[in-house]
């Protein structure tokens, strides 16, 4: 099925981006300390870029967590349910999660469009909408993942 290949590609891409963002973060944060303490200088754009990187790493990490179904839950009731009942309740919570993600993604996309039209600048020459792009993307992908998880559970697929 083509969907499986696409999901595999997306997973690979996600991992690659995660590794890249985190590496960049470490190098940039380390370099900034060296510059500041060694040369009494520092890159003006490094600090805001690092802050945006935290947001990006957080959301890409959250996408990966959705893929592995490893988001933080409370989950005290479903321990008491039978495996069969649990399948249905988890399918329900997954679909609801997908719906929440969809609403968040939609309103985040509206924000990005507004910022694009407004032409605000985040830092250096980077427009704000580019930094915000990860919001609709992240919640959109998470929404799709939870939808797929929920449907898979109803069909009796093994959990990831």
């Amino acid at each position, binding site marked *: 099925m083509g969907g499986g290949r696409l999901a595999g590609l997306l997973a690979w891409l996600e991992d690659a981006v995660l590794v890249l963002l985190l590496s960049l973060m470490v190098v940039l944060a380390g370099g900034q300390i060296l510059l500041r303490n060694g040369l009494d200088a520092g890159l003006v754009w490094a600090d805001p870029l690092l*802050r945006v990187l935290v947001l990006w*790493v*957080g959301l890409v*990490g959250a996408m990966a967590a959705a893929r592995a179904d490893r988001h*933080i839950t409370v989950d005290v009731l479903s321990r008491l349910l039978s495996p069969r009942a649990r399948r249905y309740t988890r399918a329900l919570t997954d679909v609801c999660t997908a719906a929440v993600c969809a609403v968040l993604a939609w*309103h985040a996309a509206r*924000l990005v469009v507004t910022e694009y039209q407004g032409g605000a600048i985040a830092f250096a020459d980077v427009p704000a909408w580019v930094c915000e792009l990860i919001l609709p993307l992240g919640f959109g992908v998470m929404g799709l993942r*939870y939808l797929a998880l929920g449907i898979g559970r109803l069909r009796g697929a093994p959990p990831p």
Partner: protein
Amino acid sequence: MTVAAVALVLLALLGMPLFAAIGAAALLGFHAAEVDLSVAAIEFYRLAEMPTLLAIPLFTFAGYLLSESGAPVRLVALTRALLGWLPGGLALVALAACAFFTAFTGASGVTIVALGALLYPALRHAGYGERFSLGLVTTSGSLGLLFAPSLPLILYGIVAQQLGVGRPFTLDELFLAGLLPGALMVLLLSGFSMWANRGLPLSAFSRAEARAALWAARWELPLPVVVLGGIYGGLVAVSEAAAVTVIYVFFVEVLVHREIPLRELPRVMREAMLLVGGVLVILGVSLASTNYLIDAQVPARLFEAVRSYVDSPLAFLLLLNVFLLLLGMMLDIFAALVIVVPLLLPIAVGYGVDPVHLGIVFLANMQLGYFTPPVGMNLFIASLRFRKDVAELVRAAVPFFLVLLFAVLVITYWPGLSLMLGRP
């Protein structure tokens, strides 16, 4: 509105990810208040406006690197050589090693899985009772939450700072405040372990073994200095210390010891960022929900309601202990921090509780809640890890629970213990 709230709580208890439950609550709140829902996205974006947040991915990555390397083994060998000759020595080893390890990894499940596997067989082999050993390993899983740079400690600081309620404080101050209460917990548990195992034969202190263990751990030994020295010395900010730590740990474990092959590195990074992502989305959506709650003046009304029943600060603290213990049994520590602190801090400040002290009390209670019978989370993790019945672990954990309960009470009613180091 009430129906929706009940439905959300039910969904969360059935296993809906917390970020979705909190996000839905924020969206519903904004919708009812007729606020444009893109406010939720704007609030979430504030994650990119908090400089100290950088410390979270960096320290977490450093912690995961440490746990994947041979550092836990060297740590246990070192503490064993230094403390093993004391009565109950190996128990002290477990306590010290777990506290150190949890401070770096922050999440307590990791400690039980990574160190418990090492310590439990060693304890049994050395003649410690099964029940004592199980209880000790389960308890130690959350020890060290109060020591910098533990993730929950940083998260409390960030959440409290962005609320802007009560006396402003810095993360360094919070780090200092955790030292004595954390040490009290370790000391009391050590005393109990020595007393409980006073009948065991002692082993001799070996100078050669100590020297060998010190030499083996020579690269990890400077770590506390790398992390804390710069911060307390005022040389670097917390996020910078995190960067130095991660670079140092990478250098030691990947390049010097070569215990993590380069091709394994992406997997370790991904594992660490999975946790970071899980914590940050919860923080992000809770920024939105907190914004709604403050707009709706919920904390102020909550304070009024509580004050009509509870008039003395002492009674408030007692109530706080009970409430936090229950909370810690049910809720993950990160979720508890971002959901409850925004509601709790204004109330506590109203009763004259210092925000730094509240943070330490909060985390100390959460730590206890982790293994509070019958549903503390560590009991289940340990039950899975050691293949024991949960009921058996509950029985094993009770004496340790009582010891730490005493520590938590001391920490709660003696603010000075938390605050004396931070005073200028």
